[in-house]
């Protein structure tokens, strides 16, 4: 038993090495992602989305031009994983922090990475005004319908009837209102340039999310306004589900309230 444990720590945790030089490398971990274990739960969307963002940064070769803003919430430690310069903002204020960074360095790529409690509850004013000003930033909005880090309380995006630790009888619309559809709400603002809602609960969904993030980073060069990429995130721990059940829950329940797809796309120049 002891020997097995030693084996686990010593060998299997090391990065796998391809010993056959005949193979072509078809995939590698982005160098822009710090090579470390993440604190996220099994089946959590954050680790996957961190990787997607860092893949885009690597592919566009903009590591030295990218500044990320981390929120308060599960992804508060994003700067431990993303190998770029980052600032950790106060709860909800990432869009204000990103505004200043981008205004002072307009040629850099600036994104905030925020959860639903951070963005849609305490930080909705900063988010709305940043988008209304058309700040040339990317807001990555992770919507998993609960407060993750504080262990599963009701969020502004919690589904109607959904049970959380603070809505133990299910979210009552008559007293808490309906879940806020952030992407649709923000798309109404003229400052919003590109608004889309995606998920990462299947290979197909991951590819679409990657494409959305690529678009959003590239649009920053145009200085045409804010890009908002909402991502429906799996949160099996707080949903009290297995990772597979969580992925299924997104397809069967979440997308009824939060339909996937582009909500606002850049209009062709006339």
């Amino acid at each position, binding site marked *: 038993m002891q020997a097995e444990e030693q084996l686990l720590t010593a060998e299997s945790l090391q990065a796998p090495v391809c010993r056959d030089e005949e193979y072509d490398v078809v995939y590698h971990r982005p160098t822009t992602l710090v090579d470390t274990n993440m604190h996220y739960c099994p089946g959590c969307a954050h680790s996957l989305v961190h990787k997607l963002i860092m893949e885009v940064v690597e592919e566009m070769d903009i*590591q*030295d*031009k*990218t*500044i990320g*803003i*981390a929120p308060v919430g599960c992804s*508060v*430690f994003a*700067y431990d994983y*993303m*190998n*770029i*310069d*980052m*600032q*950790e*903002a*106060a709860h909800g*204020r990432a869009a*204000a*922090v*990103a*505004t*200043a*960074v981008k*205004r*002072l*360095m307009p040629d*850099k790529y600036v994104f905030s990475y925020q959860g639903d409690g951070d963005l849609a509850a305490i930080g909705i*004013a*900063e988010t709305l*005004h940043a988008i209304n000003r058309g700040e040339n930033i990317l807001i990555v909005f992770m919507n998993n319908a609960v407060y993750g880090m504080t262990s599963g309380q009701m969020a502004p995006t919690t589904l109607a009837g959904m049970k959380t630790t603070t809505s133990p009888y299910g979210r009552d619309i008559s007293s808490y209102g309906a879940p806020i559809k952030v992407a649709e709400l923000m798309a109404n603002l003229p400052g919003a340039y590109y608004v889309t809602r995606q998920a990462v609960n299947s290979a197909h969904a991951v590819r679409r999310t990657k494409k959305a993030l690529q678009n959003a980073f590239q649009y920053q060069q145009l200085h045409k306004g804010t890009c908002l990429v909402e991502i429906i995130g799996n949160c099996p721990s707080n949903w009290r589900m297995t990772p597979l059940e969580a992925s299924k829950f997104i397809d069967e329940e979440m997308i009824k309230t939060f339909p996937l797809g582009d909500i606002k796309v850049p209009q062709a120049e006339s």
Partner: protein
Amino acid sequence: MTAVKLMKGNDALAEAAIQAGCDAYFGYPITPQSEVLEYLSREMPKHNRIVLQAESEVASINMVYGAAGAGFRAMTSSSSPGFSLMQEGISYLAGAELPCLLVNVNRAGPGLGTIQPGQGDYFQATKGGGHGDYRLIVLAPDSVQEMADFVFLGFDLADKYRNPVLILSDGAIGQMMEKVEFKNYVNPKIDKSSWATTGKPKTRERNSISSLHIKPERMEQHNAKLEAKYKLIREQEVRLEEMNTSDAEYLLVAYGLSARICQKAMDIAREKGIKVGLLRPITLFPFPYKRLEMLASQLKGILTAELNSGQMVEDVMLAVKGKVPVEFYGRMGGMIFTPEEIVDQLEKLIATQHAS
């Protein structure tokens, strides 16, 4: 060649920000400091600097965080209710050790209070204000000239210690007009590349701006680092002004607007033959505890005068350690005492001592 101008305190402060090389100003309108935002909205674009009217003081202080974290000279200003809204952000700025300049043009409170001048924010300014163990370097101007001077000093101190600096002014100093002289200032433009988030080149590790240290051992180390910095500031940055203290038997202690009134009161009392001096703390943090303690041995009594219910007087008492009686006189609610009121209080203090 220096230019002498007649300016409002708030305008002088704003002009000094431009001359000090302030890269970015973020603000929100509130009386009696809106002139700062107005002045900079007009002038900053002419210098290709960033000026932004935020949606709230909460947003503006966090914009300062972003700008300072990216290594730029950043500033905000507000007045009491608005400054209260910034306290969370200020705690984060202090925790993340970001240099920046903050201005509170103090009005009387609590709550919405009144737009008239007050000094009720002394505790908030000097004892923390937001959550957690931290200190700001606090400068208290008593003239339009110092509204300008302390902007240059404030930015330099902020950079030197990687700490937010607060100019604690008040509605009278902010609104009144006086002559002001702008000296030739050279922005030292210190190198912040070792920590600022400007984009990670291949040649260095990534820079992170954060006040989070989740492991208590790490957090305590960080607290100790901050405390060591505050200790150094206490040792090196005490600033004060003294008048007529060499032969003084009595001492007036006051800062900002109150100190100007006390200066006149001192002149009147001196004409009456009362040997009274004035000590004006210029830095409220660090507070001139040592100098006050030294003076205490020669004094018969101290009168502390403030436009509040008695806040700085607690620091005066701490300084003199009971060696000399310390009395307090204050007006509140935006009301301002006259020099004669101060003289009356001083004479009462003297009479009480003779009676006992």
